[in-house]
């Protein structure tokens, strides 16, 4: 209710923050930005940006508009636009995205499909 009462030391703009002392189980769907620093098992889906910080552990399929990964993901990752993998990122699963940036040290174990717009993915009537 109150301007000064919610003090997020993590990030002020995120709608959802899963902190390092928290474990989430189930289908986690959101419309806003999500920051994950703890553990998630199930599915993660957001219409905006997903940030997985170093130390975070996700055992789930992930769908987001944009993502910046520093933690580990065990599951398929589908990003509409840009996927950024930091040096500490570990992904065990298939990746689908439009653009990708991979830092030295990042680990990917899976297929990577990129460059396809959503429109191009639709099968033609002809």
């Amino acid at each position, binding site marked *: 209710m109150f301007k000064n*009462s919610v003090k997020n*030391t*993590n990030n002020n703009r995120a709608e959802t923050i899963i902190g390092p002392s*928290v474990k989430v189980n*189930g289908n986690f769907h959101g419309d806003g930005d999500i920051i994950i620093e703890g553990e998630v098992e199930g599915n993660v889906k957001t219409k905006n940006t997903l940030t997985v910080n170093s130390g975070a552990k996700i055992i789930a399929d992930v769908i987001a508009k944009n993502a910046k990964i520093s933690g580990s993901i065990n599951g398929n990752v589908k990003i509409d636009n840009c996927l950024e993998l930091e040096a500490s990122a570990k992904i065990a699963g298939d990746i689908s995205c439009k653009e990708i940036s991979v830092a030295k040290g990042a680990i990917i174990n899976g297929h990577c499909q990129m460059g396809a717009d959503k429109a191009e993915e639709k099968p033609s009537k002809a």
Partner: protein
Amino acid sequence: MGTAKWEQTKPKKNRLKPKSMHVYVYDTYVSEKKYAAQIAKIETRITDLGLNGKIIRLGLISSIDQAIISEIKKGAKTIVMVGGVKLLHQGVNALAKIITSETLGQNIPLAFIPVGKDEFGAGQILGLKAGEEACNVLSQRRIKEVGLGKADNNYFLFSAQIATNDTILEIDENYTIKIKKPGLIKVENLKNTLNLLITTKKRNKNSLFPFKNLLLSDSKHPLILDFVVELNLPVKITTAKEKINLIVGSSREF
């Protein structure tokens, strides 16, 4: 001719009615001697501002809900809670229940005059200072419609919070949250959206979740509504359909 006479007399009757009837509900503790001077100043200021009204002393009535219903039926235009945050919580609940069960109280504003120490900062959140300065806010009549949280059948204005250790939360029947470290779960009533804030000591990093339905279970600790009212678990927290009109100060924190 008779009809004309009736039409002429009707406005005279209206003139006899007070323009704005305030009902002041006094907390039990404000009758203590140490608050006598502050109450005297409040009453003087209310008189100066022309906001006199009926005083209800909480110790003498059995049901605050019934008292408020009765006064609204008699024409009360503003309900003013004079005392502590627990009294304000009771007033919020009474008004929200009246809105639900009766076709009354839809636009009746609720005001608060804090008396004594603002221990939980409730007055500050509403932009009020204790005592006579809150009377000025009452006079300015800055009304804000405020959404409420609901914990089972209890409404809350400010927050619901509980100390946690291995507590499990279920949100919107979609996912569960397990908190691995001791800390505090706080549901804050942010305008019309409830936010769940989880604070633990680890690295001083919080968790934040928006939600519509939250089921709290598996904790020995009680849930505390509006800083003062305790509820035992399990409790389901939702956004209430009811909204109330609050008289607030310009320095309010929402």
